[in-house]
């Protein structure tokens, strides 16, 4: 079957899903799975084959002919969308069931289909006008999914912030596409635009407009609250795929448009900054879904570092190291999609079982939820970029690209050296953040009653999590498998890089990873067996001789992150209130700590307040007294008269 037929099937299934989701959950699930499978087939046809798929129809929408294009770059993103779209739909059956949410579950299904459909359209449409329409529909669908629980004020606020921020980005995109259209004389998009050097400044519009959606560091303000307050399958979709739509936009339009010489430097700089600060914010969080959200800022930073390296390589004579950096960035798109969805799904299971997102209220959940704990640990290893899982493979490729720039002493090395060091710092902080999250949620003793009453999630939720974990493990253990795919996507970004050189280090790396995994299994089993044969004695945790330690004596997330937060307090700006024990008969003592979203609360909110203050000052002119209004009119006419009388000759 050709990709056209498959995409038609997919679109049909998803449109039918919008209708059937409201009434018939089983039909909806079947339709969604069939639709995403068909679209996955189409994208694999393009990725594994050698030709792109393009279709210019005679059907017109809004006066423009429908133009669809599926090349390797969009197919890469489409494949990710399909995997997360299907697994999220399956997960939602257990997580957001009709029994528990009779009102919002049907709505959620309809919007889910609409979201997947619109994101698919964004990836395939090749006409500026249609792209904008699909982009807007995708934004709105995501808004309704974020606000499924619209009874809670926090959810409404998060949704509003998301909608406002997205529309700032969309506004810039309007400017981008309108300029393009007026310059080209039509709305058609495509690689032909690359030849027009005059279009280069548009890169900055694309970077801002798509950067808001991608959560590039200073533009990420909407991201933490939206990801934390959305239902977890929606968070997985937002973080795993919706952010990637922004990345797709950035990649697409610096592949299709000429880029200014400064582009690579700015992108790699933004990426390094975002990687380090994103994960520093993540480390400081106490809400585990906010932690995951900030971690997405870091991972988008990693992707941008790779992309920035590639842009620099293109401007510096198509250096071969650029392809490695780009390959790393592209593979990280898949990898982050897989492990972040897995982590959000496991976070959802914890939330489902305990009803709280506060890590300081959890603990010891491994006993009640062994599967979730194990899968979270695997996801944590992957997201920290540790071998032998997939996160390491893509970060390793990005590193190799940057190191290539450094060893060849290209001018790009001046960006690559700081990027490598910041990436290493970010990696170490990611490890710290996920050691903290895993330990606070799953290890030790339950800190509250709710944590004690937790239960393992059902098979509808476990199934998709296991599938995503398998994806993480397979890409990690056999990375050579994805090399042709990634090279093909790199080739559609920059045609000079279409030829795949042998991925020799990847094959070796894969073998090392397999050996490592086998050794881990062997040694762990051996040590377990040895411990069992020697005899295991169970007892209370020692803790300095306390006979019955209480769960509150455990280290908390705040204290775990204390050292790191201290280093970054200049940007984290933690708000602390503390009352110490004083006197002979002290009153109760407490210590509270809140981590504000610094960019939002310290930069954007004061700016917004300034605008409001100016407008309310101006508003004093408008008070509803007719006499004064007549006075304004008279004064205005008098001023005009003066202008005409004494203003000089025209």
């Amino acid at each position: 079957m050709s990709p056209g037929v498959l995409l038609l099937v997919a679109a049909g299934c998803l449109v039918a899903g919008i209708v059937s989701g409201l009434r018939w959950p089983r039909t909806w699930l079947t339709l969604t799975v069939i639709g995403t499978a068909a679209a996955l087939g189409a994208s694999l046809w393009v990725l594994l084959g050698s030709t792109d798929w393009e279709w210019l129809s005679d059907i017109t929408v809004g006066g423009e002919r429908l133009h669809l294009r599926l090349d390797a770059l969009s197919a890469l993103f489409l494949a990710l969308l399909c995997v997360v779209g299907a697994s999220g739909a399956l997960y939602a059956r257990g997580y957001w069931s009709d029994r528990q949410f009779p009102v919002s579950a049907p709505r959620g299904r309809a919007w889910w289909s609409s979201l997947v459909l619109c994101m698919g359209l964004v990836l395939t449409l090749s006409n500026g006008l249609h792209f904008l329409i699909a982009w807007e529909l995708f934004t709105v669908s995501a808004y309704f999914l974020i606000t499924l629980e619209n009874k809670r004020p926090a959810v409404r606020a998060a949704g509003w912030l998301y909608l406002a921020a997205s529309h700032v980005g969309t506004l810039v995109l309007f400017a981008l596409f309108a300029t393009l259209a007026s310059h080209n004389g039509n709305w058609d998009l495509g690689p032909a635009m690359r030849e027009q050097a005059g279009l280069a400044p548009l890169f900055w519009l694309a970077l801002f407009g798509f950067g808001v959606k991608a959560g590039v560091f200073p533009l990420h303000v909407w991201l933490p609250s939206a990801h934390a307050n959305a239902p977890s399958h929606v968070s997985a979709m937002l973080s795993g795929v919706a952010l990637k739509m922004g990345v797709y936009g950035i990649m697409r339009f610096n592949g299709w448009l000429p880029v200014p010489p400064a582009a690579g430097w700015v992108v790699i700089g933004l990426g390094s900054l975002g990687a380090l600060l994103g994960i520093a914010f993540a480390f400081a969080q106490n809400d585990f879904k906010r932690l995951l959200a900030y971690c997405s800022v870091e991972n988008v930073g990693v992707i941008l570092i790779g992309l920035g390296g590639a842009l620099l390589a293109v401007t510096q004579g198509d250096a071969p190291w650029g392809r490695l950096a780009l390959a790393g960035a592209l593979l990280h798109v898949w990898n982050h999609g897989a492990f972040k969805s897995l982590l959000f799904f496991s976070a959802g299971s914890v939330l489902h079982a305990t009803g709280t997102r506060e890590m300081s209220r959890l603990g010891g959940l491994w006993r009640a939820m062994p599967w979730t704990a194990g899968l979270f640990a695997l996801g944590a290893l992957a997201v920290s970029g540790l071998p032998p899982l997939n996160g390491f493979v893509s970060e390793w490729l990005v590193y190799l690209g940057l190191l290539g720039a450094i060893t060849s002493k290209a001018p790009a090395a001046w960006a690559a050296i700081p990027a490598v060091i910041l990436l290493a710092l970010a990696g170490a902080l990611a490890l710290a953040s996920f050691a903290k999250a895993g330990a606070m949620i799953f290890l030790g003793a339950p800190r509250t009653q709710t944590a004690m009453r937790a239960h393992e999630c059902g098979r509808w939720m476990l199934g998709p999590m296991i599938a995503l974990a398998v994806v993480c493990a397979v890409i990690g253990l056999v990375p050579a498998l994805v090399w042709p795919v990634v090279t093909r996507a790199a080739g559609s970004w920059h045609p000079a890089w279409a030829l795949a050189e042998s991925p020799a280090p990847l094959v070796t790396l894969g073998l090392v990873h397999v050996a490592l995994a086998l050794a881990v299994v062997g040694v762990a089993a051996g040590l377990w067996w040895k411990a069992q044969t020697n005899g295991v004695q169970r007892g209370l945790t020692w803790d300095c001789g306390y006979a019955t330690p209480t769960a509150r004596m455990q280290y908390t997330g705040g204290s775990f992150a204390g050292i790191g937060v201290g280093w970054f307090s200049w940007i984290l700006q933690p708000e602390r209130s503390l009352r110490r024990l004083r006197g002979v008969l002290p009153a109760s003592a407490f210590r509270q700590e809140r981590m504000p979203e610094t960019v939002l609360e310290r930069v954007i909110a004061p700016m917004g307040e300034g605008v409001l203050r100016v407008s309310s000052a101006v508003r004093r002119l408008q008070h509803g007294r007719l006499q004064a209004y007549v006075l304004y009119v008279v004064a205005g006419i008098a001023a005009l008269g003066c202008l005409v009388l004494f203003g000089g000759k025209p």
Partner: protein
Amino acid sequence: MNTVLELIFRLAWWLILAPLLPGIINKVKAWVAGRRGPPVLQLYYDLARLWRKSVVMSTLASPGFVIGPAVAWVALLGAVILVPLGPAGAALSFRGDVLLMLYLLALARFCTAWAAMETGSAFEGMGAAREVSYAVLAEAAMVAAMLSLCVQTGSVSLATMLAPSAGAGAVLLAAGLFTVLLAENCRVPFDDPNTHLELTMIHEAMILDHSGPPLAVILHGASMKLLLFSVLLTEAVLPMGDLSPFAATGVLLGGVLTATVGVGLVESLLARFAFQRVPLLLTTAVLLCLFALLVAWKGGAA
């Protein structure tokens, strides 16, 4: 057949030689203090004894309490296998293996911290928090050091990176890497392996509740890590590639011994720093390695 023999030789070097290093350190410390001290082979005896002992586990601990040390040990073994051994070269060498080595060390750190948090004890929490936080700076220093070697040799594979000497920046690099060695292996002035006050420990606080074979695996892994860092330090600074195999072996052994004795002397002559000063010292190490990088960049221009 040859490769099998070679692999056995390598594993023997790393697995059997490693526990000797803490013994040497303790001997040096005893010698400086005028004591007789424990035998050089003490850690071997300890390991053998621990291996036969039964395990005491917290009621809170999950299987991760035992699996964590096992994974960490495998990760450390993987990291040491990647390090070239002077004239023998590396067992496996490919482009970017230096990053794999660094990330395997990180994997070991993650698993140790995870296993530490299993018991829910505040001491282990303290130790793990310190370990993962200070490692951020140590990682930056390590990466800067490796970058300077990359720039020096124009290669990103450990075997070629470590063959020549570090050139003009060797002294800076040696100082930086030695500081990282002390921090990563939890030696004075960052941590005191012999203290009995849990509040002031890093690594030892993390393994307070471990016992029996898992503790043996942790201790053995830690000694391998110490050996790894001393081999890396020696090879980064001295021109191993230019020497004859015999001389190179001698130099390698001498270098490792010097580093070990150096650690012992530092432990004898310095007190542990207050925790506020630890990041300062680590930042110094980062700066030293960055300067080594700059020197390599300037010096290797030819």
